[in-house]
């Protein structure tokens, strides 16, 4: 089994584009939440989201023409391009068939689906623009990465909702550890859309102004968007080319609640943590920090805390939610979590849970409230849960 390392990260987020801006935002606890502009929020009682309002696909993309690809694919390809640059990887030195693109998503090209729906409402089904229809399939997210970087390996889009990029990173781990790859670009992308905003509002799971995970008065998520890609390599490949190694990808665990479409199940989530630890060869006492799923809904944060206490005992490691800054970036969320975990290990600090005011005694966890904390971070657990009961947890460690 080959060892797997992180050598580059590419965040395209509402709190910063590229590792320098993103890391600085995590350290200072910057919020990326703003009034919605990507659709008309008139009529909605809540009108905030984590949009990447400064996103300019032309700034990163060299081969993918934004005119022919949807917003989520543009996020994916831009994030991959940033990850290559951060890894200082010369793609011409990589055997094309041994470099893969594995992307996760919740709603794929949701903005394209919404534009087509407006055409259907206005002019009937026949009025849909065929060029827009070709942008609709969700497999285009991984394909955009393959096109942008000229990769000839597997091009796979995993659509397991809000844990999708942990699934993607996990599959990438298997490809690398099992000797089927030298390099994998793995992560996820999603776009803010009207239907998710409406759906979460109707579920009573959408906050009004700010997302406040682990707070007693937490009121729900804010939808967010972006692209998050990690450059993963075998240790051998990275060492041979003299790459800077940020972190080691230790392993992952996945399972399924198989109980309810939207309500998470604490015992299954706890079991997923144990699977992830076992597959990574670590024990709970090794974990220094948990990058939470931490959506900020009453039920998620309670279930996640319960599972953490069940697995780690009464004094679990600090657990913070970067969704307090980014909002819920859906299929990109675990990718951003993995990038934040990598930065925590590399730069020696825990990202904070911002907007925190009131302790919830029912939770019993330390959410790293409001201010980043200096720490020697050796092992991180990056949580991901999803509709459909799709749990996926990735473990990262300091390079040795």
């Amino acid at each position, binding site marked *: 089994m080959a060892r797997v390392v992180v050598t580059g990260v590419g965040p395209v987020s509402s709190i910063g584009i590229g590792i320098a801006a993103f890391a600085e935002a995590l350290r200072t606890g910057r919020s990326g939440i703003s009034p919605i502009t990507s659709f008309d929020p008139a009529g909605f*009682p809540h009108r905030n989201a984590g949009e990447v309002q400064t996103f300019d696909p032309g700034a990163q993309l060299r081969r993918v023409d934004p005119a022919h690809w949807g917003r989520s694919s543009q996020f994916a390809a831009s994030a991959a391009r940033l990850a290559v640059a951060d890894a200082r990887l010369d793609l011409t030195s990589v055997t094309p068939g041994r470099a893969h693109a594995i992307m996760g998503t919740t709603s794929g090209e949701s903005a394209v689906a*919404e534009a087509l729906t407006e055409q259907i409402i206005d002019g009937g089904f*026949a009025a849909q623009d065929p060029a827009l229809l070709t942008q609709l399939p969700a497999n285009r997210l991984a394909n955009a990465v393959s*096109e942008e970087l000229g990769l000839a390996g597997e091009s796979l889009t995993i*659509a397991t909702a809000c844990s999708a990029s942990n699934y993607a990173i996990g599959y990438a781990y298997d490809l690398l550890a099992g000797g089927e790859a030298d390099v994998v670009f793995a992560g996820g992308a999603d776009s803010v859309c*009207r239907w998710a905003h*409406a759906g979460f509002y109707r579920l009573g799971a959408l906050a009004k102004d700010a997302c406040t995970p682990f707070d007693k008065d937490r009121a729900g998520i804010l939808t967010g968007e972006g692209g998050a890609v990690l450059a993963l390599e075998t240790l051998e490949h990275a060492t041979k080319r003299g790459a800077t190694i940020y972190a080691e990808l230790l392993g992952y665990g*996945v*399972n399924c609640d198989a109980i309810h479409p939207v309500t998470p199940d604490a015992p299954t989530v706890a079991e997923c943590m144990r699977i992830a630890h076992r597959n990574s060869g670590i024990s709970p006492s090794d974990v220094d920090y948990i990058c939470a799923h931490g959506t900020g809904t009453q039920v998620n944060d309670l279930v996640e805390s319960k599972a953490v206490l069940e697995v780690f005992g009464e004094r679990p490691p600090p657990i913070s939610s970067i969704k307090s800054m980014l909002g819920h970036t859906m299929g990109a969320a675990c990718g951003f979590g993995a990038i934040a975990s990598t930065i925590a290990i590399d730069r020696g600090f825990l990202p904070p849970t911002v907007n925190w005011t009131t302790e919830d005694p029912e939770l019993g966890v330390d959410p790293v409230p409001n201010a980043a904390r200096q720490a020697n971070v050796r092992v991180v657990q990056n949580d991901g849960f999803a509709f*459909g009961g799709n749990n996926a947890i990735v473990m990262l460690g300091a390079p040795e």
Partner: protein
Amino acid sequence: MSGVVVTGWSALTSAGVGVDALAKRLELAEAGQVEKGQEIGDLYEEPLPAANGHFLPSFSPREHLGRKGTSTYDRATGLAVVCCQEALREAGVELDDEVRPRIGVVLGTSLGSFKSTSDYTRETLVQEKPYLVNPMLFPNTVMNCAAGQVAIRFGLRGVNTTIAGGTLGFLNALRYAGNAIERGHVDVVVAGAVEEFTPHRAWSTHLTGATEVVAAGEAAGMFVLAKENTPEWAGTRRRAGVLAVATAYGPGGGDAAETALAGCVHRVLAKAGADASEVSTVYTGEADDGDRREYGPIVRALGHSPERVMVKRLFGECDAASGAVALGVLLAEDRDTRPGLSLLTARGADGAVGAAIVRRYADGGPDRG
């Protein structure tokens, strides 16, 4: 030998629910004919681009599953859950709480139910208030809805993965499932793909030119996959061996994609330890004799011209599910006189390609008890 075995399977196609319906349709079909599909009639109120389509008339999940838990299913979810039930039954999988965490679900799709998603968006635009949507239907807008409901229905707690692969969807699912088994994440995967027949898919296939030769269709196909030496609870018969699966990408499409497809063929042969001359049949995603986008590179890679089967001619354009239909046809057809290996291939609109190599065991294979 690497790869996994199929201990049982089922398919829901325009021929009906289950293996027997599919086999009967194949028996009656003339070789190579294009089946135009049933008259759609009043299945939907919305105008459709064609009078015919390949769909399951009067399909009702309740008829197969009962009322409980089915009221929010969209069509794709209903097809997937019923298909999984049939596949588990056909394989003879004995479900209990010991084995449920060891069984995964891997499902290929293009984008889940475009109808569910689009109808939800529509509600936000046409209702008096944009938030007057049905919260119970919100999970249907997410692409993993069908796989999640399959897991809930049968209590399958292993890896649960939805793959958005378009025409590659089924081969992507097979590849991913094989890895999950090989790496020990689970012992068994119910792997397959599903696409529904709705006005949304009928129009999107029509407007993108996918139905020039064949009509739009729907289908689900699911296959119970396990290691060769899997425990008895996973089913005791072997219907086929999926010896190897490879997918790849040809940036820019065109020649690069053809080279990538030929590369996949070489790789699956090598992984299976098979010789090109052993491949007697190839099941492609093409629909027209003159279309050689897949067959051309395959013939060049193999060095000979195996028989080509184009399942879309009988069962319509089922996108991600067409690959699952192809494996179903491979397993259902009365082909005992033609031994050898088969290839399943797919090629996407961008540069994605893939191939699987399958050995069918005649008469359902040796009893492994």
